[in-house]
């Protein structure tokens, strides 16, 4: 009897569980609904720290800000070449030191105010203000006297090279010819902010509330509709934007889904059109499915290992070269990272504004062994205990283990892996308390300078302790050179020095990894992974 009752109960529960889903029909997913209504759902990784163009540093924030604000020039979604933004057209003087921008008269803020030259000058002044402490203020240093103003050595902003010739004509005077100026102008540190709004909520406070939904006034193709922290940010088509007829999306919803696996599941559940990235171990699956959604495209970034050249053994250039040569990058990218990354034998990603390092180093295990012998460690004998430091992440640990194994097999040296939490890792590399550490660099703008300039002696991000007088000279000469071929020639020479001295070991060039719903149109692959939303639309 007892057995019967229990069996009946179990059978009943089983029926309920199976019957429940059958009763419900497949519901319409947010993506289906979005396709109908032109609402784009995009994952953006982490929660944006702010939406203030002068204060943010991350890609996440930038991906939202480009919907809300527009700079002097904008970018062609296909090749990132400059296209008119607030400035309708512009001309440069022959010596490359003066640029004149002619504003369009119909550019408006979202409250209807016209966008004028004065708004931009206000914004440059704010970004350079020493009181604000904008982390990317140095992006404006190409303006005459901008650095001095930012450092507080001059206090008169009228001496900085940004002048209003009239309400709609802006003149920029540069400290040195900056051939990549138009590319720089698309960076968020050059974006305008709405002066009355900033004055109202505090223009020079880092914790100003002007970026909250309801307060935010922008001049971009979209307006900030709502910002629910850690949940979603919604921007809607602006009715005051000068080029509003081209904007087809009605709304964009951004979701800060930090966990890659959760994000990928949300994509599969039809909640996202576009993911910020994807879990490494799912790439293979999408590959095998031949999925149209998988987008792996070259990205302006390099994954590399930093070497502390002050440490024993590592202070010997031959050891550094041997370490770099004894890594099989093809295997690393094919079997470990698996995202279609390009093996790196130099530092600047290939075809950065038409520049590719002419000759990289070669992987050669025999040569590496020989170099190690010459350095006094035949077959790895007597090689000191060296630590390889990385911050906690699934990908970093796999790469580090693979390289540890390669060095063991090829050079017979033992490397200890050290895993640190992010901030501890940053502090350790910053203070030079490491032997070898993993690192990555994403270009701030499309120019080799963004990659080579950082290895000049004592630059903040040169944490290797390495410096080379000739290298520094070549870079400073390049900064004064207007002619592109000559300039790139100087970069070539400098990069040769960098990869022969090997204070860093380049491993691979990044790929952006997204899942993109096939309904998304106008989402062109490009090296900066920037996708101006005014050209994006949905066509199921």
């Amino acid at each position, binding site marked *: 009897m*007892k*057995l019967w*009752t*229990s*069996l009946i*109960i179990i059978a009943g529960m089983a029926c309920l569980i199976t019957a*429940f*889903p059958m009763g*419900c029909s*497949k*519901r319409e997913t947010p993506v289906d609904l979005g396709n109908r209504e032109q609402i784009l759902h995009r994952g953006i990784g982490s*929660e944006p*720290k*702010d939406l*203030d163009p002068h*204060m943010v*540093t991350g890609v996440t924030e930038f991906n939202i800000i480009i919907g809300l604000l527009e700079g002097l020039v904008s970018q062609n979604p296909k090749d990132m070449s400059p296209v008119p933004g607030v400035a309708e057209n512009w001309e440069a003087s022959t010596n490359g030191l003066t640029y004149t921008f002619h504003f369009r008269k119909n550019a408006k803020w979202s409250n209807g105010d016209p966008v004028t030259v004065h708004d931009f000058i206000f914004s440059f002044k704010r970004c350079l203000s*020493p*009181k*604000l*402490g*904008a*982390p990317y*203020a*140095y992006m404006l240093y190409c303006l005459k006297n901008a650095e001095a103003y930012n450092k507080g050595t001059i206090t008169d902003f009228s001496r900085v090279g940004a002048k209003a010739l009239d309400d709609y004509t802006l003149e920029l005077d540069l400290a040195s010819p900056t051939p990549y100026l138009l590319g720089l102008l698309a960076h968020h540190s050059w974006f305008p902010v709405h002066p009355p709004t900033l004055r109202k909520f505090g223009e020079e*406070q*880092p*914790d*100003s*509330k*002007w*970026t*909250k939904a309801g307060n935010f006034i922008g001049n971009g193709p979209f307006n900030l509709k709502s910002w*629910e*922290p*850690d*949940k979603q940010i919604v921007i809607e088509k602006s009715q005051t934007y000068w080029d509003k007829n081209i904007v087809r999306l009605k709304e964009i919803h951004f*979701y800060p*889904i*930090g*966990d890659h*696996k*959760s994000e990928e*599941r*949300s994509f*599969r*559940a039809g*909640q996202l059109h576009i993911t910020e990235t994807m879990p490494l171990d799912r790439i293979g699956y999408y590959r095998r499915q031949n999925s149209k959604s998988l987008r792996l495209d070259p990205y302006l970034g390099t994954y590399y290992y930093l070497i502390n050249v002050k440490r024993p053994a590592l202070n010997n250039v031959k050891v550094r070269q041997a370490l770099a040569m004894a890594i099989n990058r093809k295997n690393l990218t094919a079997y470990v990272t698996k995202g279609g990354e390009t093996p790196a034998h130099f530092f600047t990603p290939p075809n950065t504004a038409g520049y590719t390092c002419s000759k990289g180093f070669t992987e050669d295990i025999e040569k590496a062994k020989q170099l190690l012998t010459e350095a006094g460690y035949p077959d790895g004998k007597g090689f000191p205990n060296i630590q390889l430091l990385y911050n906690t992440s699934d990908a970093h640990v796999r790469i580090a283990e693979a390289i540890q194994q390669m060095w063991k097999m090829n050079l017979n040296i033992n490397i200890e892996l050290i895993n640190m*939490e*992010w*901030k*501890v890792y*940053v*502090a*350790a590399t*910053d203070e030079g308390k490491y032997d070898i550490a993993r*690192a*990555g660099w994403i270009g701030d703008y499309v120019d080799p300078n963004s990659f080579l300039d950082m290895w000049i002696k004592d630059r*903040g*991000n040169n944490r290797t302790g390495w410096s080379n007088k000739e290298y520094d000279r070549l870079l400073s000469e390049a900064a004064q050179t207007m002619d592109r071929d000559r300039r790139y020639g100087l970069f070539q020479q400098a990069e040769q020095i960098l990869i022969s001295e090997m204070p860093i070991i380049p491993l691979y060039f990044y790929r952006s990894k997204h899942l993109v719903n096939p309904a998304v149109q106008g989402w062109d692959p490009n090296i900066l992974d920037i996708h101006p939303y005014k050209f994006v639309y949905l066509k199921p």
Partner: protein
Amino acid sequence: MLKFVARRLLQIVPVLLIVITITFFLIRLAPGGPFTDEKKYPPEVIECRNAYYGLNDSLPMQYLHYLGNVVKGNLGPCLQYRNRTVNEVIKETFPISFELGCWAMIYALALGLVFGIIAALRPNTLLDHIPMAAAMTGICLPAFVLGPLLILVFGLWLGLFNASGWEMATDRILPAITLGSVYAAYIARLSRSSMLEILPMDYIRTARAKGASELRVIVCHALKNAAIPVVSFLGPAFAGIVTGSFVVETIFQIPGMGKMFVTAAFNRDYFLLLGLIVFYAGLLVALNLIVDIVLVWLNPKIKIEA
């Protein structure tokens, strides 16, 4: 009773003071600061930020300043999410974690008590073994396995629920089950064992003899006593569950407090982390007090020690 409550409430003050002090100095010992990042900020910028947030003063000064602010109910600014204050963050995230916690608790209690009681009424039969085996599985299955599994089956295969988010009413179901399962399992086992102890007692036989219905006997007579260990378990469990679970909130993308707590520690967001800890400590003390009061109500034999 009033004296007891007042005394316990007063105890909160030294507890919070100790918690603040330890956390305040401990977090400063951690390498790195709120403004260190891979792409290094220029030193002027860090200097400027530190000055703005008063992080350049000596540590004891900062500590006193912070205590003063806490007394005023101001938990300070958020260093990472710049346009928000710690008070705002708590105000935004706690209700969400609290709601999720409540659903999880309701689920855990309903499932745990029912399973526990059924098992205790029919010990060593299938009705005992199946729920207890399920409970064991529930204890063993961590949230980071159960959550994705539930999403896979009910979200992706059957298409019944969203895979993430906190938008619709149905978005509460899977996270609540994930979060509540472990607690349901504990409650089931706890209530089963205490019911087994209570059921053979004389007063239960008396109740049956005087003709009380079986339901009345179980719910009014047996359960009231059997619930005591469950209630003492619930106090800290509830505090843990409503202050948010990092794992569940991450898997389901829920904008709750648990996630804030962990990211604040990773980001060295001093004020946010401190604020959340103060809040959490206060909540824990308060919930323990409530549990004590409920226990007295359940069992008059437990005396309030004056």
